[in-house]
């Protein structure tokens, strides 16, 4: 019962996870380290639909969080205290434009799911009002 509310909730959960990963990726985009040290790996949400045997489906779920490249990208910054003997600093691979696009997509989707939850709640309430 009340599947539509659960489904909208599953969408909001995935969107929230997506927004969280974007927040982490953008916040850590400039975390330069000495090459050889572990560099921040961007996080990407892998989501998939939840199938239902005899019905339209039961929403969406996070399958895994995929990570960006571990080696990072090298920048020549000899004056940076983190630079190695070759004057290079390792930065995380984060595409800011891609992250911002994802942020807008996840926000729209979050709003749409929240709207579905409101509509579904009204519909169920209306059904509960049926009386003689």
């Amino acid at each position, binding site marked *: 019962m009340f599947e539509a509310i659960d*489904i909208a909730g599953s969408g909001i959960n995935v969107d929230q996870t997506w927004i969280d990963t974007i927040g982490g990726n953008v916040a850590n985009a400039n975390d330069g380290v000495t090459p050889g040290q572990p560099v921040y790996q961007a996080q990407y949400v892998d989501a998939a639909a939840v199938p239902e045997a005899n019905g*339209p489906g039961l929403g*969406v779920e996070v399958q895994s969080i995929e990570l960006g490249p571990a080696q990072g990208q090298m920048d020549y910054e000899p004056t940076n205290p983190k630079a190695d003997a070759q004057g290079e600093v390792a930065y995380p691979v984060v595409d800011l434009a891609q992250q911002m696009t994802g942020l807008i997509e996840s926000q729209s989707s979050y709003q*749409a799911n929240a709207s579905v939850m409101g509509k579904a709640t009204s*519909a169920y309430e209306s*059904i509960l*009002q049926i009386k*003689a």
Partner: protein
Amino acid sequence: MADAAESIGILQFSLDSLVQQQQAIANNIANVNTPGYQASQVTFASSLEAAMANGGTATARTVPEGLSSASDGNNVSLATEMTLMQENSLQSQTVDNALSDQFTVLSDAITG
């Protein structure tokens, strides 16, 4: 002219179908960004019409929406789904009111 029990049966089928339809729409919206997801819809109106005209049982069926897909294989149109959600919501309210009316008629007949 359908009697009260028949009307209630038709309205109940409609409401069940509308709830299923609402679930399909919610599922499409939840998967608006899921790569490879194909939107589905629940159809029942034509089946109900045929059953009312010719007798027989109406069924609600889940079928693919069949719109063209974007490059990630997803074919959900958020605008379409939000419109369908609004329609579904108003249709449900109409059926809810009609059911209440039918029950009121029955109740009046019983109590006199």
